[in-house]
């Protein structure tokens, strides 16, 4: 199929795509696996980074801030390549595409989650700190029992939006041969020469999953906004 040849009557043939549909589904499962694990590690790590940036002494605060800014301002693909191609040689360890992907996206998303946590914590009125102090709570108790529960409720939509962004970003793992949805699509396209159909179906699969998530987030945001639990930071 020559690129640029003017094909008016292109005959679409989706049969090859549906013959290999289970491979695409497997890819989707792998996409969700990387996304899920990155969230699992990224959120606690993000909280830690946010707390270090907010309340740490200079020795902790400055590296934490730098790490957050660095991970937020460098392209994820540069990070992924660094962890996959550079780090193993540097540390003399072996790492497979799956581990490199989870590691990269846990760290990458932790930086964004840290900023969500920070925004959420800072959005809580100072009066809450003072009230907690007045009843004799120390800083850790105040954070854990007064500030964070309120902050987290406000952050939920931002978290979910980040999670959706993360799912979109995980398509990069295909570049280091981890068999996510995009990688599977690429493989099938190469063996069947039906790249138009295969990539269109793969894009549609991403769309369905991500669009449903986006609608759910919007719905939730609307709901939280109505019950007054949401203040835009």
């Amino acid at each position: 199929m020559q690129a640029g040849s003017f094909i008016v009557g292109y005959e679409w043939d989706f049969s090859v795509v549906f013959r290999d549909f289970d491979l695409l589904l497997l890819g989707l499962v792998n996409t969700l696996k990387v996304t899920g694990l990155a969230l699992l590690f990224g959120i606690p790590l993000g909280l830690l980074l946010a707390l270090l940036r907010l309340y740490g002494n200079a020795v902790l605060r400055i590296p934490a801030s730098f790490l957050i800014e660095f991970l937020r301002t460098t392209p994820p693909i540069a990070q992924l390549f660094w962890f996959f191609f550079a780090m193993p040689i540097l540390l003399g360890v072996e790492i497979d595409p799956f581990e490199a992907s989870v590691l990269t996206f846990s760290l990458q998303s932790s930086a964004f989650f840290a900023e969500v946590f920070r925004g959420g914590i800072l959005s809580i009125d100072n009066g809450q700190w003072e009230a907690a102090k007045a009843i004799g709570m120390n800083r850790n108790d105040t954070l854990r029992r007064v500030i964070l529960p309120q902050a987290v409720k406000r952050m939920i939509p931002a978290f979910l939006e980040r999670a959706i962004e993360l799912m979109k970003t995980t398509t990069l793992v295909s570049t280091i041969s981890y068999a996510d949805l995009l990688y599977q699509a690429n493989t099938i396209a190469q063996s069947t020469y039906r790249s138009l159909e295969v990539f269109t179906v793969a894009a549609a699969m991403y769309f369905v999953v991500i669009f449903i998530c986006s609608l759910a987030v919007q719905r939730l945001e609307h709901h939280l906004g109505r019950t007054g639990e949401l203040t835009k930071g």
Partner: protein
Amino acid sequence: MEHVWDFSAVFSNWYLLLIGLKNTIVLAVVCLVLGLFFGLFVGAARYSGNRLFNWPATAFVEIFRNTPVLVQIMWFFFAFPIISPFDINAFTAAALGLTLNTVAFSSEIYRAGIQSIHKGQWEAAKALGMNYSQQMGRIILPQAVRRMIPAFMNRAVELVKMTSLASVIAYGELMHQAKTISTIEFNPIEMYTSVALIFFILIFPFTLLVQRFEIRSKAKG
């Protein structure tokens, strides 16, 4: 294992990196300019009450916002040429994907910005006898654009980061040059560290500028 850092091969290939940097900037600027330009029209169509404009614009925006940008680039590079009447090279495919993505995201910024302007402004402009395009062009947009600047700058930062995806389809931007150099010189550690630093140096001043803008516009209210 002790690794001895050796950046000499990075510096001796400075010219290749410079070409990559140039290509990164060219791609980002082209997509930003086209994206912001067409985004205005799509945003206006989204804002319009006329279904003939509203529905196609909404479908377009939702499709491009809810699929990964790498999938868009791959689609334009591997799938689109089959039905395209014109030739698609790596630059065209990357530029198409990133531009349309930027159109979708910036149209939402335009829409939110236009919506944030008080209804009274429209009415006042109408009362002066202005037609729709005059109301939009002279009264609403000048006020709205000022509020949108931080969001646009964030988009620009995201866009520069996204140009690195063009390396996947072998467009010779910074990331692709780094990949090539590291395979020739066997220096992935130094090369990928350097390229991450170059991106950081390129983008970080922008993020600082955005933060400053955001603080200033918040203080203004």
